[in-house]
């Protein structure tokens, strides 16, 4: 009796090998992405240069009008820009850092970016929806941090490292393994922490008595 191959495993194996193949040929794709993005940016109509030169048909009319008829999108634009920057910085951090705690800090950074964007929209529309959502984002972030830090501690107690790559044996077998090269010693040398001059004479301790506790 021949072993039956599940179709899902065939699909996943081919996907994994395709991604390993892509990893070898990723640089043209990266260069293409960057070039396309820069080209798109350059194609944005230069509305700040000459407002009159922009044909009215290409402008987006209705979004700039607040309910009371006064145009205000400066705060919205700047808030969305700050939110996008924070989100992208968090994304870079979670993609590239290997310390699990720093990865979680980066995830919190992305949540901050989303919060800033939501509050910008809330201000722009003059309603409470965005701010309500941010309150629940805060709640979910607290839950997420509590549960995730428990898992980080469990992982640390198993491997003794906060390294995400300490778990790379969980990867698919076709994917290449990360091998760390030996790093040069830090040139900083010994850190000298500030010290205080002792005041008075330290009394004698009973080491045994210090370690004992009446109750836990």
């Amino acid at each position, binding site marked *: 009796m021949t072993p039956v191959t599940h179709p899902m495993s065939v699909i996943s194996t081919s996907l994994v090998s395709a991604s390993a193949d892509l990893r070898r040929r990723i640089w043209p794709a990266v260069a293409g*992405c*960057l070039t396309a993005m*820069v080209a*798109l*940016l*350059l194609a*944005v109509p*230069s509305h*700040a240069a000459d407002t*009159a030169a922009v044909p*009215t048909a290409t*402008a987006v*009319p209705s*979004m700039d*009008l*607040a309910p009371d*008829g*006064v*145009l*205000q999108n400066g705060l*919205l634009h*700047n*808030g*969305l*820009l*700050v939110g*996008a920057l924070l989100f992208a*910085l968090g994304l*870079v*951090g979670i*993609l*590239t850092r*290997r310390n699990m*705690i*720093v990865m*979680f*800090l980066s995830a*919190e*950074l992305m949540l*901050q970016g989303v*919060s*800033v964007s939501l509050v910008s929209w*809330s*201000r722009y529309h003059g309603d*409470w929806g965005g701010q309500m959502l*941010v309150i*629940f984002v*805060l709640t*979910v972030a*607290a*839950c997420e*941090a509590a549960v995730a830090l*428990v898992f980080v*501690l*469990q992982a640390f*107690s198993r491997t003794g490292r*906060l390294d995400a*790559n300490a778990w790379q044996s969980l990867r698919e077998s076709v994917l290449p393994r990360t091998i*760390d090269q030996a*790093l040069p010693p830090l040139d900083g040398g010994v850190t000298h922490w500030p010290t205080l001059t002792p005041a008075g004479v330290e009394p004698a301790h009973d080491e045994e008595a210090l370690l004992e506790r009446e109750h836990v």
Partner: protein
Amino acid sequence: MLPSVFATQLMAEAGSVAGRPGLLMAVAVTTAAASLWLLLPKGLEHKLTRPAGFILGAVALAAFALAGRRLGSIGEEAVFALVALVAVVSATATIVTRSPVYAAIWFAMTLAGVSGVLLILGAQFLGVATIVVYAGAILVMFLFVLMLAQPSGLASYDRVSSEPMLSAIAGAVLVGLLTISIGRLSAPVPADDVEAAATAESDAPADSVTAVVPDPLFENHVARLGGELFGRHLIAVEAAGVLLFVALVGAIAVVTRGEAAALAEGRPTR
């Protein structure tokens, strides 16, 4: 003098670049990506790597600041620029610093900046709650875990990062695409609409494109926010309470089961 000629030429160039937001944003995102790549920990570094990263980052920040829209008054612009600068610079420092303890403290600084941005945007309660809940509770929890788990000195995995260049480019592409959509969003209104708005509100100045209206959510902010939260969103509040409770129970359950398993396997527990 050659330097002065060069400086005036540079300023003219900067002015012409500032007049073209697309080019400005392209410059900003590419320099930001290069700066991030230079600043991220890579193990082996030349001694000029970090200064070059700082310079490119300053260029990127200046380009982003030039790409920002004008606000109502120069004071408002200055305050917004200050808090946004604090937030973005500290966020960058959070992800590029080697020591995770410093990363957590830089993240607290980011929270201070974000809280300032939220206050400017009129979300008074959220600005305070960000400091109290994030910096006061969540960040302290992070620091607590760090103190439990951090080995002495700088670990080897903190001195290298995986694929820094690809990640920086991914972030740059994301910011570029988001900026394109933001720029399309706030393209200038047609002249008719500006006139209509000016006639609708006769005392508004003619160049009211950048005028900031008073915040409709300003009056009795926290009271109205509480009314909205416990009125329209009451069921969501209850669900959030249940979620917090479940997270608490789940965290404790995972810890105690982990300790039991470690005891059974003969591994040392804390």
